[in-house]
C-alpha cells in the first residue's frame, strides 16, 4: 500500500524520526530551577524535564524522554524551540500547538519550528496525547514555579505530573 494513502508518511515524517533517534536537550543541567516528571500511566510514556529559569526566561532545558516516537519527538522539539523564550511565550506556544492538534489551523505570527512536522498526528486521534505529554509537563512545571503568572492550567487527569521547584522564585516574570 502507498504509505501516503495510509497517513503513515504524514505521521512518521523524517524530521520526527530524527528527533526520536537523537533528541535535543540531552545534557543534564547543573543548576536547574525546576525538575518535573510527566507520566502517562495509560501508555507508560515517561518524561523527566529540568528547566533553568533566569530573568523570567527559560535559559536551559534538559529532557529525558521514554516512550513512543511521537512523545519523544515532541519533547525534543519542545527542548529545541523554547530555549530563550519567556515563560509566557512558551505557554503561548503550548496553547497554540494544542489548538492545532485538536483540529485548529496553524496560527500566524508564531514560529513553530519543527513542530509543524507533527501536523500528521491530527489524523491519529489516539496519539494526540503522546504529542502533548511534554507540553502538559512543561505547563505544570511553570504553574508550580510561578502560580500567579499563569492562568488556568489544563488539567489532564490521565497524565500524572510531579513538579519540584528547587529554587524559590526571586523575581516576577519578565
Amino acid at each position, binding site marked *: 500500500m502507498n504509505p501516503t494513502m495510509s497517513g503513515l508518511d504524514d505521521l512518521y515524517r523524517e524530521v520526527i524520526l530524527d528527533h526520536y533517534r537523537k533528541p535535543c536537550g540531552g545534557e543534564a543541567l547543573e543548576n536547574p530551577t525546576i525538575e518535573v516528571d510527566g507520566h502517562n500511566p495509560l501508555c507508560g510514556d515517561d518524561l523527566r524535564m529540568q528547566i533553568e529559569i533566569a530573568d523570567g526566561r527559560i535559559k536551559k532545558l534538559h529532557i529525558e524522554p521514554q*516512550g513512543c516516537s511521537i512523545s519523544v519527538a515532541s519533547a525534543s522539539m519542545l527542548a529545541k524551540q523554547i530555549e530563550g523564550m519567556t515563560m509566557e511565550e512558551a505557554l503561548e506556544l503550548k496553547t497554540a500547538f494544542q489548538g492545532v492538534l485538536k483540529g485548529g489551523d496553524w496560527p500566524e505570527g508564531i514560529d513553530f519550528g519543527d513542530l509543524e512536522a507533527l501536523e500528521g498526528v491530527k489524523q491519529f486521534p489516539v496519539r494526540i496525547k503522546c504529542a502533548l505529554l511534554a507540553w502538559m509537563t512543561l505547563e505544570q512545571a511553570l504553574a508550580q514555579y510561578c502560580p500567579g503568572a499563569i492562568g488556568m492550567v489544563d488539567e489532564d487527569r490521565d497524565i500524572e505530573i510531579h513538579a519540584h521547584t528547587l529554587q524559590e522564585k526571586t523575581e516576577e516574570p519578565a
Partner: protein
Amino acid sequence: MSDDNHSEDQMLNTTSTEPAVTGSVSVHEETGAPAAEAGLDVSRIKQDFPILQRQIFGRRLVYLDNAATSQKPQCVIDAISDYYSGYNSNVHRGVHTLASEATSAYEDAREKIAAFINGDDPKSIIFTRNTTESINLVAHSWGRKHLFPNDEIVLTAMEHHSNIVPWQLLAKDVGCKIRVLDITDDGYLRLDQLNELLNEKTRLVALTQVSNALGTINPVRQIADAAHERGALVLVDGAQAMPHDTVDVEAMGADFFACSPHKALGPTGVGVLWARRDLLEEMDPFLGGGEMIRDVSFERSTWAAVPHKFEAGTPSIADVIGMGAAIDYLTSLGMENVRAHEQAIITYALERLRELPFISIYGPRNPEDRCGLVSFNDVDIHPHDLGTVVDRHGVAIRAGHHCAKPLMTRLGLVASARASFYVYNDMEDVDAFVDALYEARKVFGLPTT
C-alpha cells in the same frame, strides 16, 4: 424454547447451521506450514462474521485483538435482533406471552453456559456485566463476610487488574493481607514458592487460568489442591480460558469461576460468575433492588433464591440471549477443535516471529503451555508506534500494559505488543501480521535482517 416461532426464524437467519468442522488436515499454499484448519473449516467460519468483510485502509481486516474482545458471528447478532424485534420484554414474573418467551430464552442461556463450563447446576450461574464485576461480587458478598484482619489472600504476579484491585479494596476495608506468588522470567508460576505462601491464615487463592498478557496456561488443579489442603477457597479468573478450551469448573477444583463471554463470540454486557451452590446460598447480596428480593417492607427485606439474589435490577436480557447463541456456535465447532486450531496457529506464529531477529517474545517458549496469544516487542520500535503502523496495514493488535501493570513491572517492561488469535484466524493472518511487522521496520528506516 421449543414452542415459539422465533427460534425457527433464528435458524433461517443464521448463515451456517451446520458446524464448520472438517476432519482433514491441509497444508497452507504459500507457507507450506501445516494448516491450522485441522478440525475447523476456517474459510467457512470467516463467512459467519460480517465484520471480517471490512476493509481497513484498503486492506483486508486481520483481527488479532481477540484477547480484548472477539468478533461476533451473524447468529449472535441475529439472536439479539430477534429478541428485540420478536419478543422483547422484561424477564421473570410477567404473565404475558412476551415475558414468558423472554424469561424462557434468558434462563435457557443460563443452562447453556452452565453446561459449557461443566457446572452441573444452572442455579450456580450468576449473570454480571463482565469478569471484573463477577470478581467484585465475590470480594463483596463472600469476602466481606468471611475475611478478618490478618487473614491472607494469595494472588499471582500475572493477574489482570480485575483480579487485583477488588482484593485490594477488600483488604483495605477488612484489614486482611495480600500475598503474591511470583513467576519465572519466562512466565510460569513459581510453584516451588507455593507451600511457603500458603498457611493457616490463607482464606483465598485467586488466580488466572490463562494469562492475558503472556498466554501461560496455569496448573489450576495443582494449586487448587494445595489451597484446599489449607482450607482456603479458590477463585479462578477464566476470562482468557473459557473462550479457547474445554472448561470444567469441577475438575479444576474451582470454588468460584469468573468469565466474560464477549471474548467467546458473545456480546459485551454479560459476565458470568459460577460458584459452588453452598457458597452462594450463604453469601450476602451484592446489589440491592428489584429482581433480587423475595419480600420487602420498610422494616426488613428478604432475598430471592440463588441465583436471582445476586441479579438486582433488569439484566442485559438481549445480551444474555446472544451469549446463548455464541455458546451454541462454539459447541457446534467443538472446543477440542478450537483448542487444536489455536495450538497450530500459535505454534506457527511463534515460529514466524522467531525468524525475526528484531523481535523479543515474552512468555512460555513451548506453545503447548500457551493459549493462542503472544506478547512481543520490536526491540527498536515502541509498541504504540508498532500498533499504529500495522493498523494501517489492516492488522489489529493491542499495545500497552494489557491491564497487568504488576506483571509488566515484574518483567521489566513498560509496554508490549500482543497478537491474539481465534477461530476465524488462519495462517494467512499470521503471514499478514508478520509482513506488517516488516513494513513497520521500513517506516522507521530500520534493517529487516
